Protein backbone atom coordinates (compact mmCIF):
# COMPACT_ATOMS: atom_id res chain seq x y z
CA UNK A 1 0.00 0.00 0.00
CA UNK A 2 1.25 3.50 -0.78
CA UNK A 3 2.59 5.48 2.12
CA UNK A 4 1.38 9.10 2.27
CA UNK A 5 4.91 10.52 2.16
CA UNK A 6 5.90 8.46 -0.89
CA UNK A 7 6.76 10.08 -4.22
CA UNK A 8 4.79 8.86 -7.22
CA UNK A 9 6.82 9.05 -10.45
CA UNK A 10 4.79 8.57 -13.62
CA UNK A 11 6.52 7.30 -16.75
CA UNK A 12 4.62 7.86 -20.00
CA UNK A 13 7.30 7.88 -22.70
CA UNK A 14 8.83 4.95 -24.57
CA UNK A 15 12.56 4.17 -24.67
CA UNK A 16 14.70 5.76 -27.41
CA UNK A 17 12.07 8.21 -28.66
CA UNK A 18 13.02 11.03 -26.35
CA UNK A 19 14.96 11.56 -23.15
CA UNK A 20 11.79 11.74 -21.02
CA UNK A 21 11.96 8.12 -19.94
CA UNK A 22 15.57 8.25 -18.83
CA UNK A 23 15.25 11.59 -17.07
CA UNK A 24 12.10 10.35 -15.31
CA UNK A 25 13.86 7.20 -14.09
CA UNK A 26 16.84 9.33 -12.96
CA UNK A 27 14.50 11.41 -10.80
CA UNK A 28 13.09 8.21 -9.26
CA UNK A 29 16.58 6.83 -8.60
CA UNK A 30 17.81 10.02 -6.96
CA UNK A 31 14.72 10.15 -4.73
CA UNK A 32 15.37 6.51 -3.81
CA UNK A 33 19.02 7.25 -3.07
CA UNK A 34 17.88 10.04 -0.73
CA UNK A 35 15.82 7.51 1.18
CA UNK A 36 12.45 8.82 -0.04
CA UNK A 37 9.90 6.03 -0.66
CA UNK A 38 9.23 5.97 -4.41
CA UNK A 39 6.48 4.29 -6.42
CA UNK A 40 6.40 4.14 -10.19
CA UNK A 41 3.36 4.15 -12.46
CA UNK A 42 3.80 3.28 -16.15
CA UNK A 43 1.08 4.67 -18.44
CA UNK A 44 0.67 4.87 -22.22
CA UNK A 45 3.82 4.12 -24.20
CA UNK A 46 5.76 4.23 -20.93
CA UNK A 47 4.91 0.55 -20.45
CA UNK A 48 7.35 -0.21 -23.26
CA UNK A 49 10.18 0.57 -20.83
CA UNK A 50 9.38 -2.76 -19.15
CA UNK A 51 9.63 -5.03 -22.21
CA UNK A 52 12.03 -7.86 -21.34
CA UNK A 53 13.31 -8.26 -24.87
CA UNK A 54 14.72 -4.74 -25.32
CA UNK A 55 18.18 -4.39 -26.80
CA UNK A 56 20.29 -1.29 -26.73
CA UNK A 57 19.66 1.36 -29.37
CA UNK A 58 22.00 2.13 -32.22
CA UNK A 59 25.72 2.13 -31.50
CA UNK A 60 26.44 4.29 -28.47
CA UNK A 61 22.80 4.54 -27.39
CA UNK A 62 22.11 3.43 -23.87
CA UNK A 63 19.66 0.63 -23.11
CA UNK A 64 16.84 1.16 -20.61
CA UNK A 65 16.70 -2.27 -19.03
CA UNK A 66 19.83 -1.89 -16.85
CA UNK A 67 18.24 1.21 -15.30
CA UNK A 68 14.99 -0.68 -14.64
CA UNK A 69 17.07 -3.38 -12.96
CA UNK A 70 18.77 -0.76 -10.79
CA UNK A 71 15.45 0.37 -9.31
CA UNK A 72 15.38 -2.52 -6.86
CA UNK A 73 18.80 -1.61 -5.48
CA UNK A 74 17.23 1.67 -4.39
CA UNK A 75 14.26 -0.13 -2.80
CA UNK A 76 11.96 0.96 -5.60
CA UNK A 77 9.98 -2.25 -5.94
CA UNK A 78 6.52 -0.90 -6.71
CA UNK A 79 6.20 -0.74 -10.49
CA UNK A 80 2.53 -0.30 -11.36
CA UNK A 81 1.54 -0.79 -14.97
CA UNK A 82 -1.71 0.48 -16.45
CA UNK A 83 -3.74 -2.52 -17.60
CA UNK A 84 -5.50 -0.35 -20.18
CA UNK A 85 -2.17 0.76 -21.65
CA UNK A 86 -1.09 -2.87 -22.10
CA UNK A 87 -4.40 -3.71 -23.73
CA UNK A 88 -4.43 -0.78 -26.11
CA UNK A 89 -0.82 -1.46 -27.14
CA UNK A 90 -1.62 -5.20 -27.38
CA UNK A 91 1.29 -6.08 -25.10
CA UNK A 92 0.90 -9.28 -23.05
CA UNK A 93 1.86 -9.14 -19.38
CA UNK A 94 4.29 -12.06 -19.95
CA UNK A 95 6.53 -9.90 -22.09
CA UNK A 96 7.23 -7.52 -19.19
CA UNK A 97 9.98 -7.75 -16.56
CA UNK A 98 9.18 -9.78 -13.43
CA UNK A 99 8.48 -7.12 -10.85
CA UNK A 100 5.74 -5.24 -12.71
CA UNK A 101 2.30 -5.18 -11.05
CA UNK A 102 -0.81 -4.59 -13.17
CA UNK A 103 -3.25 -1.93 -12.00
CA UNK A 104 -6.81 -1.54 -13.28
CA UNK A 105 -7.42 1.85 -14.88
CA UNK A 106 -10.26 2.63 -12.42
CA UNK A 107 -7.69 2.53 -9.63
CA UNK A 108 -5.39 5.12 -11.19
CA UNK A 109 -7.20 8.22 -9.83
CA UNK A 110 -7.02 6.70 -6.35
CA UNK A 111 -3.29 6.17 -6.70
CA UNK A 112 -2.85 9.85 -7.52
CA UNK A 113 -4.86 10.89 -4.45
CA UNK A 114 -2.85 8.66 -2.12
CA UNK A 115 0.50 10.27 -2.92
CA UNK A 116 1.42 13.64 -1.51
CA UNK A 117 4.21 14.17 -4.04
CA UNK A 118 3.95 13.44 -7.77
CA UNK A 119 6.37 13.92 -10.67
CA UNK A 120 5.00 13.27 -14.15
CA UNK A 121 7.37 12.34 -16.98
Amino acid sequence: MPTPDALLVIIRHAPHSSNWLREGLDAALVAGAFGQPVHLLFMGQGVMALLKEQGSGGPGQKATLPTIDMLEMYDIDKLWVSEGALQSLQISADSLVENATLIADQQIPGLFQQHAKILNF
Partner: protein
Amino acid sequence: MILHILTKAPDSNAATQMQQAVGDRDAVMLIEAAVIAALDPSWTAWQQCHARIFLLSEDLIARGLASIAEVNGLPTLEMNGFVALTEQYEKAVTWY
Protein backbone atom coordinates in the same frame (compact mmCIF):
# COMPACT_ATOMS: atom_id res chain seq x y z
CA MET B 1 -7.77 16.96 -4.66
CA ILE B 2 -5.55 17.57 -7.63
CA LEU B 3 -5.29 20.28 -10.26
CA HIS B 4 -4.44 18.68 -13.60
CA ILE B 5 -2.71 21.01 -16.06
CA LEU B 6 -2.91 19.93 -19.70
CA THR B 7 -0.54 21.55 -22.22
CA LYS B 8 -1.22 19.38 -25.28
CA ALA B 9 -4.17 19.14 -27.70
CA PRO B 10 -7.29 17.17 -26.73
CA ASP B 11 -6.42 14.43 -29.26
CA SER B 12 -2.96 13.84 -27.73
CA ASN B 13 -1.77 10.91 -25.63
CA ALA B 14 -1.23 13.40 -22.81
CA ALA B 15 -4.94 14.29 -22.85
CA THR B 16 -6.03 10.64 -22.85
CA GLN B 17 -3.71 9.83 -19.96
CA MET B 18 -4.91 12.84 -18.00
CA GLN B 19 -8.51 11.71 -18.39
CA GLN B 20 -7.55 8.33 -16.96
CA ALA B 21 -6.08 9.98 -13.88
CA VAL B 22 -8.65 12.68 -13.08
CA GLY B 23 -10.58 11.95 -9.89
CA ASP B 24 -14.14 13.02 -9.06
CA ARG B 25 -13.14 16.10 -7.12
CA ASP B 26 -10.16 17.14 -9.25
CA ALA B 27 -10.00 20.22 -11.48
CA VAL B 28 -8.44 20.73 -14.92
CA MET B 29 -6.62 23.76 -16.35
CA LEU B 30 -6.12 23.82 -20.14
CA ILE B 31 -3.12 25.86 -21.26
CA GLU B 32 -0.91 26.22 -24.38
CA ALA B 33 -1.96 23.73 -27.10
CA ALA B 34 -4.71 22.35 -24.84
CA VAL B 35 -6.84 25.43 -25.51
CA ILE B 36 -7.61 23.92 -28.94
CA ALA B 37 -10.30 22.13 -26.89
CA ALA B 38 -12.32 25.36 -27.25
CA LEU B 39 -13.24 24.23 -30.77
CA ASP B 40 -14.80 21.00 -29.57
CA PRO B 41 -17.59 21.23 -26.96
CA SER B 42 -18.19 17.49 -27.43
CA TRP B 43 -14.74 16.57 -26.08
CA THR B 44 -15.41 14.02 -23.32
CA ALA B 45 -13.36 15.87 -20.71
CA TRP B 46 -15.88 18.74 -20.73
CA GLN B 47 -18.49 16.33 -19.33
CA GLN B 48 -16.08 14.34 -17.20
CA CYS B 49 -14.82 17.39 -15.32
CA HIS B 50 -17.96 19.46 -15.66
CA ALA B 51 -17.75 22.74 -13.70
CA ARG B 52 -14.10 22.20 -12.76
CA ILE B 53 -12.37 22.61 -16.15
CA PHE B 54 -11.06 25.91 -17.50
CA LEU B 55 -9.29 27.40 -20.53
CA LEU B 56 -6.46 29.92 -20.05
CA SER B 57 -7.76 33.06 -21.74
CA GLU B 58 -4.42 34.55 -22.81
CA ASP B 59 -3.53 31.33 -24.63
CA LEU B 60 -6.95 31.40 -26.34
CA ILE B 61 -6.38 34.98 -27.49
CA ALA B 62 -2.91 34.20 -28.84
CA ARG B 63 -4.34 31.37 -30.95
CA GLY B 64 -7.40 33.23 -32.22
CA LEU B 65 -9.81 31.02 -30.25
CA ALA B 66 -11.24 33.47 -27.71
CA SER B 67 -14.50 34.17 -29.50
CA ILE B 68 -15.19 30.53 -30.36
CA ALA B 69 -14.70 29.65 -26.67
CA GLU B 70 -17.29 32.29 -25.84
CA VAL B 71 -19.70 31.11 -28.56
CA ASN B 72 -19.35 27.56 -27.23
CA GLY B 73 -19.99 28.83 -23.69
CA LEU B 74 -16.79 27.41 -22.24
CA PRO B 75 -15.30 28.63 -18.95
CA THR B 76 -12.08 30.64 -19.09
CA LEU B 77 -9.65 31.96 -16.50
CA GLU B 78 -6.90 34.58 -16.61
CA MET B 79 -3.43 33.73 -15.30
CA ASN B 80 -4.51 35.12 -11.93
CA GLY B 81 -7.38 32.63 -11.78
CA PHE B 82 -4.99 29.81 -12.70
CA VAL B 83 -2.83 30.71 -9.69
CA ALA B 84 -5.96 30.84 -7.51
CA LEU B 85 -6.75 27.26 -8.56
CA THR B 86 -3.26 26.12 -7.55
CA GLU B 87 -3.95 27.66 -4.13
CA GLN B 88 -7.17 25.68 -3.69
CA TYR B 89 -5.89 22.31 -4.90
CA GLU B 90 -3.03 21.02 -2.82
CA LYS B 91 -1.35 19.08 -5.64
CA ALA B 92 -0.79 19.92 -9.30
CA VAL B 93 0.12 17.46 -12.07
CA THR B 94 1.09 18.63 -15.55
CA TRP B 95 0.33 16.50 -18.61
CA TYR B 96 2.48 17.23 -21.66
